[in-house]
């Protein structure tokens, strides 16, 4: 405690004659409070506004309110005109907003002014011309008086007595039982919301010989794309890729790619710090899962010099030259590496599926 605080405490413990205890009718064991040293002088007298005493000012306020209401009506009508007259593709460009949809600009501004001036008019009316003489209304304690309470309790007890629930434990217990189990089906019938996880999170679409398709070569409809040859991947480059199966996935494309997306990078094999990573790559080309092991965002920011891969969502940073291990951020596990090789046609393919589940951790992962 600082010297000043001690001082304050002492001040607090000073015995002042006027300090009252429990004058507000606390319950026992409640913290004490000090009473009020000065009496309430009562409501301050009303100070009239200009509009209360000057009829000219009041008239002026009346006109201002009416003007606001008129403005509102005019803007409402203008809104409807703008709706029909302004073509939906028209663009307006003006400082400082820039190029915006003319229709949206006009509709929003007109509706805004119509609403605002109506509201402002009403508030201005209340503040200048309606009464501003404050007056008190009594509050009543919320609790019922003891007699009412006693009567209510008596009525309740009579009701309970009439039901016989206290005297008939068999009825009481079976009722409780049925009421306890009754809500369970509400949970039970949610079972068909989805399939059981089983081990789907452990597998992706990659398998031995699955060709790696360069995302940039995929057609707009997603059904054709080209494989990657080792000579296409230069040192320092980054290729976002998908398994060939993605080309025929149709409506399930997003489900497939959400687990199977990979990134190819090529580095000088001498830069790769791990023998396993070198073995799982091909001439310095390595493939890593694109799905962050934190909460599943696609990792996308690659720094060529350091071989660091950063996830833009929560900035987990992985070192792609050392088994994709985490070097910063909230992710706890390395980015899984996909073992790759080349097939007979010289295209990069997977040796097999990932050894570890890709994406965020889950309870059964282990």
């Amino acid at each position, binding site marked *: 405690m600082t010297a000043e605080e001690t001082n*304050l*405490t002492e001040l*607090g413990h000073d015995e*002042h004659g006027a*300090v009252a205890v429990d004058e507000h009718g606390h*319950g*026992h064991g*409640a*913290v*004490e*409070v000090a009473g009020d040293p*000065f009496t*309430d*002088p*009562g*409501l301050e007298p009303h100070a009239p506004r200009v509009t209360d005493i000057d009829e000219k000012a009041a008239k002026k306020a009346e006109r201002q309110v009416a003007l606001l209401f008129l403005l509102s009506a005019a803007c409402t009508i203008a809104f409807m005109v703008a709706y029909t007259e302004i073509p*939906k593709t028209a663009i307006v460009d003006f400082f400082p907003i820039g190029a*915006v949809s003319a229709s*949206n600009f006009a*509709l*929003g501004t007109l*509706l*805004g002014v119509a*609403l*605002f001036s*109506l*509201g*402002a008019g*009403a*508030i201005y*009316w*209340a*503040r200048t011309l*309606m*009464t*501003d003489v*404050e007056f*008190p209304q009594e509050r009543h304690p919320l609790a019922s008086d003891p007699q009412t309470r006693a009567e209510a309790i008596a009525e309740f007890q009579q009701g309970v007595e009439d039901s016989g629930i206290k005297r008939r434990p068999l009825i009481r217990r079976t009722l409780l039982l049925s009421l306890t189990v009754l809500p369970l089906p509400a949970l039970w019938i949610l079972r068909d*919301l989805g399939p*059981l996880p089983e081990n*789907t*999170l452990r597998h992706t679409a990659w398998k031995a010989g699955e060709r790696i398709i360069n995302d940039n070569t995929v057609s707009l409809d*997603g059904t054709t794309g080209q494989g990657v040859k080792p000579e296409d991947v230069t040192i320092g480059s980054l290729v976002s890729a998908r398994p060939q199966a993605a080309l025929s996935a149709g*409506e399930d494309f*997003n*489900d497939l*790619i*959400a687990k199977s997306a990979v990134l190819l990078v090529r580095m000088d094999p001498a830069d790769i710090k791990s023998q396993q990573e070198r073995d799982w790559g091909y001439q310095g080309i390595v493939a890593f899962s694109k799905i962050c092991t934190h*909460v599943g965002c*696609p990792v996308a920011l690659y720094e060529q010099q350091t071989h660091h891969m950063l996830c*833009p969502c929560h*900035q987990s940073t992985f070192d792609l030259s050392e088994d994709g291990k985490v070097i910063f*951020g*909230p992710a*706890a596990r390395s980015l899984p590496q996909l073992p790759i090789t080349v097939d007979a046609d010289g295209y990069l393919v997977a040796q097999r599926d990932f050894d570890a589940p890709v994406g*965020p*951790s*889950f*309870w059964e992962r*282990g």
Partner: protein
Amino acid sequence: MTATTPDTAAPTTLGGKAAEYLDERLGIAGAAKKQLRKIFPDHWSFMLGEIALYSFIVLLLSGIFLTLFFNPSMNEVTYNGSYTPLDGIKMSEAYASTVNISFDVRGGLLMRQIHHWAALVFVMAITVHMLRIFFTGAFRKPRELNWLIGFLLFVMALLEGFAGYSLPDDLLSGTGLRIAEGVILSIPIVGTYVSFFLFGGEFPGHDLVPRLFSIHILLVPGLILALITVHLILVFYQKHTQWAGPGRNNENVVGLPLLPVYTAKAGGFFFVVFGVISLLSGLVSINPIWTYGPYVPTQITAGSQPDWYIGFLEGSLRMMPNLEWNFWGHTLSLNVLIPSLVVPGILFTGLAVYPFLEAWITGDKREHHILDRPRNMPTRTAIGVAGCTFYAVLWIVGGNDLIATHFHLSLESITWAGRFTVFLGPAFAFWITRRICFGLQRSDRDKVLHGREAGIIIRSPEGEFSEVHSPLSDGDRYKLTQHDVHRPLSIAQAADPNGVPAPNLRKAKLRAKITEWYFGTRIEKPTAEEYHDAITGGHH
């Protein structure tokens, strides 16, 4: 009319006839007599809750319009609408219909932007309103239950906002859902199952958008509407709190009548809120989903940000160190579980139970209708500011990438700074807030005893300079001294209120200790004697 009712004339006006019609069927005259001129106290801070209510009405109105055109389906379509950059691209119907609303439905973009802006204002207004209630002690008896209802509304608003944000199936919202999936997967034991049931299988699946749609337009808004109704009925029934002042006490409420003043002010304010949201929506673009593109799990934009009210979770996730336990074939992802579920869980639980905690500490059983000035409850105020600081640090770290790029700082050092500040910041905020509260209380005390500084410097014949102090009015003096100054409990008081041996001494000791922490340091109110001494120059 027969001669038996000589005094009551039959209504002649249309309104009078309508009132008679209704009263004969509903008996509303009694309620109308009592409520039409009901008094409401006036203060700017009382309109924060109104903003929340009005933006909710705006959300309902604009939301109904949007449901007429939005198609909550994950079925794949090829876009060929009037926004040419997306021509020929495959996307879900949800995304395509949102783009259509923005470009091919007249007024559609305005309604979308009104809906989104209103949602941001809604959560913001609830948050600030809740802070107002907290810092002024308006949650005290008899309003603890309404605090809980308000708390539930706050949680519902966050859920509703996130569900709505996720519906268009654009790149940003899909990324948000991917993160949500990662968070759900981190829940021990049931996480994987919850995820598979929610998404209807593996992420992203085809079921989530239609499911979120039901939740967003029916389930949660229905609950919000019901809770708002109860919330307002209670405000009406328990009557509004008021600030201290002359003529204002715990047994009355001073203000202006519902009809006409508050009808005009509150009604007018609804249009003002709606008007401001419309102007914003006409002038400031929000969530331009057509620039993000449809959701594809492999795409991402750097520097993407969620809506403001999710930012604290984002920061929490970003700053958490990478702890993960693997044991007996299971994984416990503390790096996800703690920041996204445990931290907000503790924060929100603390918020919900605070009124009950404080009531237990003070043992106060009185009704409170006069608001506390935050300075007069320094420990409560300091707890509140510490909580806000904690939230603010999380929120700021949620934008660590933007801070790094804008201010050319290292991302790592911002994150590390956040990891320390999230603990040190609230502690410092607690300490400094209490000091400021005590300082303000002392200045109030001086003002009561010696008056207000008049700004007039006089020089005495001896050459001494001094400032003239003008005394306060009776009203101001009362206003500054009517608050409670709480005293800590001794162990005996805490344990043995009725002279009966305490059943639980340890609990009593704890309570005595907490009251010492809460009220041990305090500024006493000036007494009438001190005031008398001050104005007579200290001579008896």
